[in-house]
């Protein structure tokens, strides 16, 4: 893992290359480094990390930080296979303007995973070749994994709310 100082060095490098607004926050929690960046700088930051050795994207997923704003976060888990090092890059967007540039072109593994994040959270990835719903039916409305989307389901039948027995096989 890049330790806390290593993380700060990476953050400084990003600030130098992409501007001081690129890095929003650095978090070092339980021996793991997270770098939060501005959404529009995600592509360049990932390329910078790729040059530093983090060439494998293990996971791309979303998270809803309701009620904190900006609500929707997209997390990129990167892995450096030769040094066995992991780092997380986080970008947060709001629900009013949930656009973030897609990284599918340079990281082909992001294809299905960005579609899933779009499906579940509503984050629109600009530049994605085929942004459609992947897990829910194509004409589904709503983004299920947002925190304000109800869990749904059927009411559990107890004695107080059971109706007349439905017709079963004779």
């Amino acid at each position, binding site marked *: 893992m890049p330790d806390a100082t290593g993380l700060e060095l990476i953050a400084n490098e990003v600030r130098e290359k992409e501007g001081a607004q690129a890095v929003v926050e650095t978090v070092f929690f339980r021996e793991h480094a997270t770098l939060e960046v501005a959404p529009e700088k995600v592509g360049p930051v990932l390329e910078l990390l790729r040059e530093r050795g983090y060439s494998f994207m293990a996971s791309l997923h979303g998270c809803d930080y309701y009620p904190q704003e900006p609500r929707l976060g997209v997390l990129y888990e990167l892995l450096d296979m030769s040094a066995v090092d992991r780092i997380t890059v986080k970008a947060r967007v709001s629900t009013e303007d949930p656009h973030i540039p897609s990284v599918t072109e340079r990281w082909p593994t992001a294809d299905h995973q960005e579609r899933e994040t779009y499906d579940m959270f509503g984050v629109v990835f600009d530049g994605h070749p085929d942004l459609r719903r992947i897990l829910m*039916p194509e004409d589904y409305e709503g983004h*299920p994994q947002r925190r304000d989307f109800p*869990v*749904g*389901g*059927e009411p*559990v039948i107890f004695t107080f709310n059971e109706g007349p027995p439905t017709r*079963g*096989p*004779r």
Partner: protein
Amino acid sequence: MKRDPLGPVDPANLRVRELNSHQLLRGGELLGANAPAHLGGADLERHVEERVLTTTLDKAVAWARSNSFFPATFGLACCAIEMMSIVAARVDVARFGFEAFRASPRQADLLILSGRVSIKMAPIVRRIYDQMLEPKWAISMGACCSSMGVFNNYALVPSDKFMPIDVHVPGCPPRPEALMHGVLKLRKMVQDDPDMGWRERYGAQGTEEVLAGPQTAAAVNLAVEGDTAGA
């Protein structure tokens, strides 16, 4: 010891009666002292009962149907692995005659819904069930399709909502023995009550969809010239 309720038996007489019984069933000439005395009435009935297995045609057909379910290969999720286990050697479904899993629903008569039915899959399950020929039965295997199971949420549909289910097998996943128990219960159900058609079983007459009038729009699966996209 009473062997013959009709009284003490003269062996020679018995032999003649036996020969006559063969002739009786074949429609041939009767022999010996009994000719032309045929067995009649209660004697004939008792005679036939002792020697011939009788049944109604319904019951025979129901017996045959119940002992030769052709399940459709319809594994959805975890329960599918336990359904594969009943085909495997320990709980051997071939003992009962149900090992012929047919891939095509047209050839299957038992749909074992094994696994969670999501909202994307539910119309497809219904379509497969509709494609099966009468008489057909359905077993809902596992908690997820019988009720909502472990996951009571937006993504699942309990199978009772869109198709008639005959046997629900609880479990998550049900042991292969439990599924076997469910299938055998269905077998007993079919044996005892030889009903044709799920619409009679569930009182669903009148739910047939009849398209009114001549059909003007092209069917969904008609091939259009030059069109190769989509499915």
